[in-house]
């Protein structure tokens, strides 16, 4: 499983990119995207997916 970013609600602040422990988040064509191959939903690393916990727009959600 992996998370995704709802592009329409994303403010492109980059807070998620800085928190992701797997370097799964990057900027693509003006918006941030999560690479599902790298995303672990932070299982075994943190209590909850870091992108979702920090996102001010609450737009990081299960894919």
């Amino acid at each position: 499983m992996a998370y995704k970013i709802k592009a329409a609600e994303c403010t492109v602040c980059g807070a998620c990119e800085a928190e992701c422990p797997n370097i799964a988040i990057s900027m693509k064509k003006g918006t941030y995207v999560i690479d599902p191959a790298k995303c672990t939903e932070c299982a075994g690393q943190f209590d909850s997916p870091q992108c979702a916990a920090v996102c001010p727009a609450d737009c990081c959600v299960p894919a």
Partner: protein
Amino acid sequence: MGNVIALDGILGLGELKAPAEIPAAASGCSSSACGSSDGPGDMPPEVWEKVKNHPCYSEEAHHYFARMHVAVAPACNIQCNYCNRKYDCSNESRPGVVSEKLTPEQAVKKVLAVAQEIPQLSVIGIAGPGDSLAAAGKNTFATFEGLQKLAPDLKLCLSTNGLALPDHVNRIKDYNIDHVTITINMVDPEVGQHIYPWIFHKHKRWTGLDAAKILHERQMEGLEMLTSAGILVKINSVMIPGINDEHLLEVNKAVKARGAFLHNIMPLISDPAHGTHFGLTGQRGPTAQELKVVQDQCEGGAKLMRHCRQCRADAVGLLGEDRGDEFTTDRIEAMEISTDDTVRRQYREHIESERAGRHAAKEAAKAEVAETVPSDVAPILIAVATKGGERINEHFGHAKEFQIYEVGLQGAKFVGHRRVDTYCEGGSGDEDALGTVLAAIADCTAVFVAKIGGCPSTSLKEAGIEPVDRFAFEYIEESALTYFKDYAERLRQGAVTDRKGHDAVLRPAEALRA
């Protein structure tokens, strides 16, 4: 030198006469004894050196020096009920709002471009639009690194909510950042839970009391670390009626006890159209007099700042003006950029040479009022139309804001500003705009202008506010004191009545970029 002369024109310095003769010793009152609103006599010399050219830390400097915010820090680590990070409108002015986010490289280039066109520029700040220290402060410190190399004469400062501050104090010291602003709205988590729905800390989202408690502890820790490192700290507090208005006295005491240099109490900016929690739930901001009452009550505590314009995270220019539109990325890309700081240095030397004379002239005017005006005359408020340079040099109809001075036996003191819609658009008067001006300065006895038309003049008089153009292009404080002396005499004769009981409307500068 060509640029310096042009600049004098902008500020209204060149066209004006020197201050009236200055007595060698102002009678019985040195600036250190009388506590002028902010001057070299009020603080240790090393502190004065740090603040004298910083428009946000020195009320006096804000008449002469410009600041610039570069919007390189979009990420934030907390949510505040007065902020909506999705909202980004070029016609709105408030912290947290920008039109264009910049990379550190773009930001450095923009600073150099602005510095070569605005020699008053003395300070570069990073204030968001998120939190400058969120996301490990990566962009913030990369920008400071570039600026330190290419424009070492510019002061660097940053604003933060304080949550990540304790982790970054050493880097702040490394980059010689000697001014830091922390937004502290509460020192009690019971109050804080109504302002902060959540924070992100130690890899976890915290809510409610826990969130407010952690934030409070981190803010106090960061503040103490900064002040013990000799860094000047300004505290910003947003006054939210019914939530933290009375509590701000406690905040003032707490930050003073920890060595804060300045406390800036700002009114909540709240509008449903902003989509903030407070905007949508109808939480109102304070009126002008409500704000002033809290500011006055805090006056004995940490030094109070009243000239804040709550500017955008990408503002450019003197406080109260925003020239950000002149420096778009496209235009900067096309500009020839130089790192020559000669004109800036000449401007600073010019201001430095004027200062001593200014301080003496203010003291002399104050002493005269103290001698001649009876002690039972209450202070009055005066609204002033100014473009900067401490002069009454703006036309009533062109003013985007009025500076408010409280004048009394203690002297003339800047106590705030009121934003208005420009009355004169394209040569004709706008009656709706006049209504906003009257509401914005309704608690003032007089309005000082360089010039004013017949119609607005009549409306002002009908509203009981005296339009005054006889001090056109003179210095504000001396003129205000001269007016007060005359006012006291007219009051004695029963020719005027005081404006006790009048209040005024505070509003954000939605028209600033329109």
